[in-house]
C-alpha cells in the first residue's frame, strides 16, 4: 500500500512539473499572439485590438476559448488517423526543449550534457508533424504546403547546426548552462567575430525553420489558402498555432543562451530572480525582432528561399566554422 501511495506521489510531482511547463506553453503562446497582433497594428500604423478588455488584452484568451469551443469540421476526403495525429504530434514535443533551457543558474529542470543536441532533435521533429498534416489533408494546396515545408526544413536545419557548432567549438561543450557560464565576462556575440556571423546565420535560418514570414511558404495564405493547415479547424488549428509560437520562443531562448550570455546581466532589484528576468528580457527582445521582420519584409519566392540557404547561408556557416576552428587552435 505504501509503495502505491509513494508511486502516486512521485507520479503527481512528475505530472505537476509537466502541467507547469505546458501551462507556460499556453500562456506564452497567448501572450505572443497578443503581442504579435498589437505590434503588427503598430507597424502598419493601426492601433491593433482594442475592444476586449483594457487595450484589447483579453482578445487572445477569448480567441482561445472560441477555438476550444468550436466544432471540429473534418472533410470526408482526409486520410484517416494521420489527420488527427498530426496536430498532436506538432503540439506534444513543443514543451520538451524547456526541460534543458538554463533560465537561471538554479532554474534548469535537466542539466543534460548534450542539451543543445536535445533541443535541435526536438525542433527537427516538427517537420514530420507539418508534413503529416499537409499530406493527410489530401488536397493540392495542403500537399504543396507539405512539400515546401519538408524541403525548407531540410535546407535550413544545416545552417542552424553549423552556426551553433561555431559556439560549441569556442566552449568545447554541448551543455547549455556551461555555454552560458563561459560568457560571464562578455557575451559571445560581442566577443568573437565568428560568433557574430554565426548568430546572423542562425537568426535567418531560425526564422525559416519556424515557417515565419518572410519565409512562411508552407502556409503562404495568398497562394495556398492556408497551406498545410487548410483543412484544420477549431483546436486542431489552435494546436498548430501554439506549436508555432512555442518553437519561435524556443529558438529565441536558444539564441539568448548561446549568443547573448543567457542569464548574465547587471544586477536588477529583484534579488535572486534578476538573472531569470534578464534571460526573459533578452529572449522577448529577440521575439520582438522576429515579429518586426515578419511585418516588414515581403515573402520571398521559393527558389530565392532555396538559393539563400544552399548558396549563401551554408557556405558562410561552413567557412565560419572552419575559420573559428583554426583560430581556436592557433
Amino acid at each position, binding site marked *: 500500500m505504501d509503495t502505491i501511495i*509513494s508511486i502516486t506521489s512521485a507520479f503527481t510531482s512528475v505530472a505537476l512539473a509537466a502541467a507547469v511547463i505546458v501551462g507556460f506553453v499556453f500562456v506564452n503562446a497567448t501572450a505572443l499572439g497578443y503581442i504579435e497582433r498589437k505590434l503588427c497594428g503598430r507597424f502598419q500604423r493601426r492601433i491593433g485590438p482594442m475592444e476586449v478588455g483594457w487595450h484589447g488584452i483579453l482578445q487572445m484568451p477569448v480567441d482561445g476559448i472560441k477555438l476550444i469551443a468550436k466544432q471540429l469540421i473534418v472533410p470526408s476526403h482526409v486520410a484517416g488517423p494521420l489527420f488527427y495525429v498530426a496536430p498532436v504530434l506538432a503540439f506534444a514535443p513543443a514543451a520538451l526543449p524547456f526541460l534543458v533551457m538554463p533560465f537561471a543558474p538554479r532554474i534548469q529542470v535537466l542539466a543534460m*550534457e*548534450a542539451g543543445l543536441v536535445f533541443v535541435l532533435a526536438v525542433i527537427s521533429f516538427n517537420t514530420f508533424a507539418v508534413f503529416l498534416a499537409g499530406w493527410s489533408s489530401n488536397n493540392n494546396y495542403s500537399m504543396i504546403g507539405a512539400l515546401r515545408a519538408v524541403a525548407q526544413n531540410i535546407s535550413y536545419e544545416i545552417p542552424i547546426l553549423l552556426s551553433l557548432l561555431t559556439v560549441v567549438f569556442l566552449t568545447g561543450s554541448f551543455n547549455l548552462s556551461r555555454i552560458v557560464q563561459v560568457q560571464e565576462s562578455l557575451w559571445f556575440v560581442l566577443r568573437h567575430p565568428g560568433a557574430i556571423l554565426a548568430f546572423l546565420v542562425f537568426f535567418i535560418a531560425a526564422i525559416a525553420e519556424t515557417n515565419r514570414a518572410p519565409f512562411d511558404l508552407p502556409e503562404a495564405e495568398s497562394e495556398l489558402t492556408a497551406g498545410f493547415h487548410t483543412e484544420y479547424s477549431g483546436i486542431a488549428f489552435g494546436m498548430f498555432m501554439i506549436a508555432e509560437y512555442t518553437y519561435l520562443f524556443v529558438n529565441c531562448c536558444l539564441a539568448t543562451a548561446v549568443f547573448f550570455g543567457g542569464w548574465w546581466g547587471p544586477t536588477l532589484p529583484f534579488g535572486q530572480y534578476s538573472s531569470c528576468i534578464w534571460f526573459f528580457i533578452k529572449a522577448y527582445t529577440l521575439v520582438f525582432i522576429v515579429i518586426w521582420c515578419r511585418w516588414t519584409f515581403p515573402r520571398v519566392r521559393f527558389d530565392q528561399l532555396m538559393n539563400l540557404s544552399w548558396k549563401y547561408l551554408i557556405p558562410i556557416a561552413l567557412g565560419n566554422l572552419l575559420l573559428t576552428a583554426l583560430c581556436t587552435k592557433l
Partner: protein
Amino acid sequence: MSEYRIIAEVVFYLLIVLTVAGAVLAVTARILIHAVVGLAVTFLGVAGFYVYLGSPFLSMMQILIYAGAITIVLVFGTMIGYTPRQIVETKIRDKNLRLALPACLVSGVVLCSAVVTAGLGTMRQSGDTGIADIGKRLLYEFSLAFELISLLLLIAMVGAMVIVGGQEERDAE
C-alpha cells in the same frame, strides 16, 4: 528512489511495446505512409532504449538523424509516388519473397548469435562517457571504420548524382 524506479520500469516495458508495434506496422501496413510512420515510431523507441542504457547523447543523435532526417527522406520518396489513400499491393508470393527470405535469414542468424554469445543476463550500463570521449575514440581507436563510413556516404552521393544526371540527358533526348 524506488518509486521512480517502478515508474521507469513501466516506461521501459511501454517502450518495448511501442518499438515492436512500430516495427509490425512498418512491415504490414498497406498504405505506404503508415509504414513510414511505423518506422519513425520504432526509431523513437530505440532512442528511448539508448537513454536506458545510459547514453543520452546517442539517443539524441538517434532522434536527430533517424527520426528527424532519414524519416523525412523516406517521406519525400513516398510523397512523390503515392496519393494519400492509394493502397500498395504487397507481392508477398512474388520474387520479393525469394529476396526477402535470405535477407531475413542472414540478419536473423547474425543477431541471434550475437544475443547468444552476449548472454541474456542484465545489461551493463556503459555510463555516459562524455561527448569528448566519443569524439576521441571515433578519431583514434575507430578511425578506419569512421573513414570507411564517410567514403561509403560519398560513393552513395556520387552514385545518386550519376543516376539523376543520366536521367535528365535521356529525358532531353
